[in-house]
């Protein structure tokens, strides 16, 4: 393209970008700011969380006609941008939103991004409710305006250990495989501590590099030293790889527990019948017996989501949506949108909805007993919640049959 064309296109593009934002519509709006990784390392889950936010906003605006707080009706607006999984970028652009006066922030995904950004919002007196960072550091540094819908990482394994102890025969040994990234490692450490506290011996604690290509060596170790439960806190594709290689190398364990992976359609599609017996965790499932205001039941949420969005439904969507729902419930309880009032109402929040019970500890993370993960198991081609008993739809199958018998 010649220089003149280039200049013209450049000028046009520049003008477009510099164009002043359109004047806001007359209807009152509540604006939610924040960043989400839409590209980069954390994009897979970041996009899930984003869809969750979008679902909540769409539902409130279109199905409910806006939300009524303190006598006025408000529409919701999302002003989220892509932080490219980069903490510096997130910090810079969150700062801009703070300057622009946004009061309610939603969280990014990944503790490495949530930590610096929540410091900024806290320092500016704004509120953040997030579904993306479980690191203890977010909640143990005296912040009062940061809330998370997950319990902190070190408490996330409590419900799993409870299940281990309730199994017949009870679990005595585990081995843990994780990758060296903040999420996986924190979860693995939390698992190790919780198991140790319950008297369960950790045979092997194996670290994989961030990009895993081959685990045959690791599996040789597992075959030589077989635990009752093999716990993997690895990400989706790594979990599939581990399972695949376990099958082809005939590595059998009484229970394979993978925290991420078995929830996805790709897992079931790839492994077929071999997926039966695999245990995973989730913070939410569409068949859970939860219901309340806002969306109705868990199933209603799933139906609404599927009717309007393409991306495969995972629990992150529900977690993202409940952040917005929590804001609105708190604002309603407080009868106002004043930051202090909403903050206090969030801290005192205690209600049930499509996500289950919602309550925060005094440090801001989700209550470990109420909002901790539930365990699910693939049984006969479906994922069923098997623990804790109050939410269970089926009994856990333990020990699982050897791979050959599951094909």
């Amino acid at each position, binding site marked *: 393209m010649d220089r003149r064309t280039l200049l013209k296109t450049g000028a046009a593009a520049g003008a477009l970008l510099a164009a002043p934002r359109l004047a806001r519509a007359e209807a009152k709006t509540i604006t939610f700011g924040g960043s989400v990784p839409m590209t980069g390392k954390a994009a897979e889950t970041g996009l899930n969380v984003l869809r969750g936010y979008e679902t909540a906003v769409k539902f409130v605006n279109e199905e409910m006609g806006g939300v009524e707080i303190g006598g006025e009706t408000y529409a919701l607006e999302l002003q989220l941008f*892509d932080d490219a999984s980069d903490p510096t970028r997130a910090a810079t652009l969150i700062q801009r939103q703070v300057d622009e006066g946004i009061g309610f922030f939603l969280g990014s995904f990944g503790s490495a991004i949530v*930590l610096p950004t929540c410091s900024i919002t806290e320092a500016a007196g704004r509120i953040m409710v997030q579904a993306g960072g479980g690191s203890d550091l977010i909640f143990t540094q005296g912040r009062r305006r940061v809330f998370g819908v997950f319990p902190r990482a070190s408490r996330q394994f409590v419900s799993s250990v409870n299940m281990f102890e309730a199994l017949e025969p009870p679990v005595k040994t585990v081995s843990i495989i994780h990758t060296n990234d*903040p999420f996986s490692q924190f979860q693995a450490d939390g698992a190790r501590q919780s198991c140790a506290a319950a008297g369960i011996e950790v045979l092997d604690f194996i670290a994989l590099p961030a990009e895993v290509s081959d685990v045959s060596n690791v599996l040789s170790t597992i075959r030589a030293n077989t635990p009752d439960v093999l716990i993997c806190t690895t990400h989706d594709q790594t979990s599939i790889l581990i399972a695949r290689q376990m099958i082809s190398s005939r590595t059998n364990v009484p229970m394979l527990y993978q925290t991420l992976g078995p929830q996805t359609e790709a897992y079931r599609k790839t492994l077929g019948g071999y997926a039966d017996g695999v245990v995973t965790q989730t913070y939410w499932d569409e068949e859970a017996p939860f219901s309340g205001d806002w969306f109705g039941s868990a199933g209603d949420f799933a139906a609404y989501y599927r009717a309007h969005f393409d991306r495969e439904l995972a629990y992150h969507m529900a977690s993202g949506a409940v952040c917005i729902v929590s804001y609105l419930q708190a604002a309603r309880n407080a009868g106002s949108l004043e930051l202090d009032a909403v903050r206090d109402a969030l801290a005192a929040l205690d209600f049930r909805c499509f996500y289950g019970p919602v309550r925060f500890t005094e440090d801001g993370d989700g209550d470990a007993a109420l909002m901790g993960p539930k365990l699910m198991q693939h049984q006969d081609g479906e994922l069923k919640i098997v623990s804790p008993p109050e939410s269970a739809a089926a009994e856990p199958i333990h020990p699982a049959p050897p791979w050959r018998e599951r094909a």
Partner: protein
Amino acid sequence: MTRPAHPLAVFAALVAAVAVALAPEALGPFHIRVLQFFFFSAALATAWNLLGGYAGYWSFGHMAFIGIGAFAAAHYAMAFGGGGAGPASMIAPVAVGALSAGGVALVIAYPLLRLRGIYFAIAMLGVSQIAAELTNNVGALKGGIGVFLPSPTPAGMPPERFFYYLFAVLLGLCLLIAWAIRRTRFGYALLAIREDEDTAMMLGVATERWKIAAFVLSATLTGTAGAIYGYSLGYFTTYSVFRLDFSLNMIVFCLIGGIGTLWGPTIGAALLLFLTQVLLSRFLDVHLMITGALVVATVLLMPGGILRAVGELPRLRPKREGGT
């Protein structure tokens, strides 16, 4: 051999310094942050330029020193505390970070600087990947789980302003060093090394010593920048500081602005950052593409960078491997 500084240049520098000092009064925090990142990037590029532009040894792995500086500072601060609060608490850890980066450079300088051209570039890339992998996978280094640096901002000052000033001072320091080097024997030795190392060696220039000096100096400055960057993040993991795109940006800024010149890296940084952070900040998913395209365009159209293309300086003849 040294020329006195041109009075106009000195005046311009003073005006710039005053402008930088006063700017935060007039700008909002977002723009201060953008400028902060600009100072950081320009300082990195200027430091890289000492080895890459002046001496002609293109390192593709300078991110190693950023990461080493940041992690060394963090481990020191976590183990021994900073001593005092506020900015004073930064001094020891940042010094440790800078010295660690310089120290590592000193250790690897002798073997690595025997390589030339592409081999050196890739070897440095390898070194930086080793550093990143070890930090991430060796438990004691805590790269996977992350490290934490307490905020050194003095009470009453917004953090972005504090780091704005800090990085501005760092850039000033790097520019000063780069300017000073050019006017000394050190600078001429590096120039000789870049143009024809073997001949320089034959003529008695202590190439070995000067190369190592440039390498260590470049690494130390980079490490300092890395340590301060770690402070600005507060909490970081391996891949928050061992970033391949930092390695590349350093090279790209110098390439675009004018490699081997004093102001080239800063100009390149300003241009590219303006483009990506301000104009295209809402088009993040094409960032990589735009940067890549710009790099390619620059090499094809202006191989020496803007400053050389504009003609202020003698045209840099592309260096032929081994001389023909």
